[in-house]
């Protein structure tokens, strides 16, 4: 059964090679005349004001955390969806319970403003 996955592995290798080859080709064919102005970070012609490793909005973390929660839930949904006609009403009701918990969490997030972005 794993033999069917072998072409996938080869494809992953070849697509990586395509990427590496294109970048290498560009490096070989293109000229290289670096100077300090060209190599400085681009800020619309201004000198860079401060370091790039600056503080950024905590909401990006929040989105990442919410993503992990919901993506896990999708991972739970997938086997349930595939096996739906075998597990019958018991499985369906179990998932209803799970979705109810999910919705409670979602409502709490919504009410607390975790989904606001302004």
């Amino acid at each position, binding site marked *: 059964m794993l033999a069917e996955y072998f072409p*996938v592995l080869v494809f992953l290798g070849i697509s990586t090679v395509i*990427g590496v080859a294109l*970048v290498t080709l560009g490096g070989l064919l*293109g000229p290289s005349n670096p100077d300090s102005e060209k190599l400085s970070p681009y800020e619309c012609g201004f000198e*860079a004001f401060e370091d790039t490793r600056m503080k950024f909005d905590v909401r990006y973390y929040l989105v990442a955390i919410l993503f992990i929660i919901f993506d896990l839930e999708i991972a739970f*949904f997938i086997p349930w969806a595939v096996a739906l006609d075998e597990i019958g009403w018991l499985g369906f009701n179990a998932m209803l319970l799970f979705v109810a918990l999910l919705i409670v969490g979602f409502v709490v997030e919504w009410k607390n403003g975790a989904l606001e972005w302004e």
Partner: protein
Amino acid sequence: MLDALLELAWIVIKILAICVPLILTVAYFTYAERKVIGFMQVRMGPNRVGFPLPFIKRFHLLGLGQPFADVVKLLLKEIILPENANKFLFVLAPVMAIAPAFAAWAVVPFSDTMVLADINAGLLYILAMTSLGVYGIIIAGWASNSKYAFLGAMRSAAQIVSYEIAMGFALVGVLIMSGTLNLSEIVNAQRGGVFDWFWWPLLPLFVIYFISGVAETNRAPFDMAEGESEIVAGFHVEYSGAAFAVFFLAEYANMILIACLTSLLFVGGWLSPFAGVPLLGDTILGTDGIFWLLAKTAFFMFMFLWLRATFPRYRYDQVMRLGWKVFVPITIVWILVAALLIMLGVVVRGS
């Protein structure tokens, strides 16, 4: 030993038979984009570059040589390595972007018999590969060590993961209807007529899947990760030459992938819309085949361009609101509706 090598060579040939047309499609998709948007804005689009022919001079051929001119130009340009950049990650990022965009095609079935790897977890693999694309973007933004690139990468990553939720839930709907993760079997589960295709019982999920696909690939009107007017080009602002071309290739390959997946999962893939229809169903239009998949994919690719030419860019808070407050609730509700449709026997699997 020789047998194994021959088998490997055969696999490589098949992979190239997918990759080469894909790259050509990307090339002409960029041309089509400029031409279609040009016509929508009452311009001509590119119409100068033709192919060098021996005797006929100034033979423009509607500008069909434009993509090749662009590729050659990009390959001959300097790749600038900014001095503050993390050099290794900076070079790695384009490869990280393009590898999953191409590798996802390994499990895509082109017709009943044409599929490279007919694996039973095809949809999971696709989900994994489309998620991996975000690494290329975030590594590019971080490694560039430039503010615009960094902000673009943060925005892009947050947007992609947000819409991935809606996309994942839409896929669960497809799984409820089909009962399998294998892409060929998903298409075969839609056999019947136009209304047996999953777009009809899963209409809201179909719409949400495609819109999320547009957002996933950072395309207009969801392209504030690039936002020319605010952060110039977003995560690839420091990239030039071939490294930029690789990002470009990855973005367009992803768009074609989303169009192809939408055709496979929701509108019957290679199945003919005229199957079972009197008169037309008996002609060549009634037969299933790869040309139906290509036609449907081309239609959704056109939709990408049409959306870009029609809608102004969203604001970032509007994008996040649409993803979290509109798409996620609708998809959760419709998953339950779809499950009820199956449980109550309104829709029968595989009929």
